[in-house]
């Protein structure tokens, strides 16, 4: 009889301990939730019943929150509840902003379309102006042009071509559907009186590399396609 009473007392004691523990965790939780800055262990301890090991309690709360959508983290030696890092995407909203391409970019894009595979120097030659790195970057960002390879020529310049996204954006079935000189003249986009010798290439976006092209090297794509840090602001 005595033992059983003793046992009961122990059980009751444990129960009380568990309850007290739960209450202490509740207090920690509420404090951390409502605080508008990370909290010091000392500050937290001051709010807990005397004699409670704040450090151990925090560790327990941290463990409890670890698998959840919100985690208890230490920042600068203080404690704070934060959204789980893997859920950061939830806290961003993507806004689609329609932007117009600059005139330089459109011209460059057209030149890439008609003259591909084409190098930056060749684009500059056709446009008669230097093409800024930014213009090609923007076009790469649109996904409409792509790096094809490298020209077998001094300096081994990168060659550009159009992508499938280009075709689908501009509603082209084949690159050959781009109008030729006569059609452009017919549409009034080019005047009839042009110097003789003016010619337009027949565009081709055959993915197979030409004889004067080398394949890209592994690093090339990283260099050209990774969005630049300063670009997101644009």
């Amino acid at each position, binding site marked *: 009889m005595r033992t059983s009473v003793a046992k009961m007392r122990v059980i009751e004691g444990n129960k009380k301990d568990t309850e007290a523990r739960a209450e202490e965790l509740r207090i920690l939780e509420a404090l951390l939730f409502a605080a508008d800055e990370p909290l010091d262990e000392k500050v937290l301890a001051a709010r807990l019943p005397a004699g409670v090991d704040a450090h151990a309690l925090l560790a327990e709360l941290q463990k409890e929150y670890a698998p959840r959508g919100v985690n208890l983290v230490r920042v600068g030696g203080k404690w704070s509840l934060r959204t789980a890092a893997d859920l950061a995407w939830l806290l961003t909203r993507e806004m689609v*902003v329609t932007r117009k391409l600059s005139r330089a970019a459109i011209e460059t894009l057209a030149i890439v379309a008609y003259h591909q595979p084409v190098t930056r120097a060749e684009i500059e030659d056709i446009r008669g102006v230097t093409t800024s790195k930014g213009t090609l970057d923007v076009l790469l960002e649109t996904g409409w042009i792509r790096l094809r390879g490298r020209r077998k020529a001094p300096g081994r310049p990168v060659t550009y071509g159009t992508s499938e996204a280009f075709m689908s954006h*501009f509603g082209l079935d084949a690159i050959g559907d781009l109008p030729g000189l006569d059609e452009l003249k017919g549409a009034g986009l080019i005047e009839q009186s042009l110097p003789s010798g003016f010619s337009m290439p027949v565009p081709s976006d055959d993915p197979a590399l030409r004889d004067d092209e080398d394949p890209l090297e592994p690093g090339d794509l990283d260099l050209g396609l990774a969005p630049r840090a300063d670009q997101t602001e644009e």
Partner: protein
Amino acid sequence: MATAAIKRMMPDDFQFVAEFPERATDEPALVIDVEGFEGPLDLLLMLARQQKVDLAKISIMALADQYLAFIEEARKLRLELAADYLVMAAWLAYLKSRLLLPDQHAPEGMSAEDMATALAQRLRRLEAIRQFAEQLLNRPQLGRQVFARGLPEPIAEIKKPEWSATLYDLLSAYAGRRQTQARSFVRMPKRTVWSLAEARAAVERLIGQAADWCALDEFLMAYMVEPSLATTVRASSFAASLELVREGRMEMHQHAAFAPLYVRKRRDQGEAGPGVELGNP
């Protein structure tokens, strides 16, 4: 005595008692601050509470008496009463008189009982709203008893550009640029001018290979395939030839104006003199 009468009207459990400061003053007029009441209805409600009955069963007659007595006391104390307290007093006096007299005819369509009921209803409504206002304020309020997240993490907006361009933009840009370039190409002449240096090199080569007089034009033919180049080739080579003659390295010869020019390397160093001879050799 007047003070006692007023105090009698305010039992100890009256909750607004606390709002009337206990002033250690013998000025009786200040014991009751009529301003402490939110208008005559508030005062009536306080008086009605003293009846300690359900407001639905309240005796309006008794209430009217109490109110009128209160006003009377206040007047004795020369308290300044706002007009609406007096209006209420007049109305209650009127109501009382009508309640006392059997209602033979209702002049305004509303019987005295109706008026009394309406007043009781108003008191109940005010009482209720006060009670529930208190309950409302006793709810846990945000920022007082309950707290929202102290460190909200705002949702960041990431702007994702969607580029717009039409096929027309593309074609007109291309056509426009190519056209301008083509024009500027012609104007900035690919005007292949035969430079003097080029001409001189060519003429020197000619006199180097030729053993005797040879016609300059015939030799230059090779450089004049392009008709547009004829003039510059002829002019430059003539100028270069003159220079070579002046330097004494070449002889030139033309038998008549506009006749073909003949050139040859100067042979006899001793035969100085003008390198250009006119007439037949």
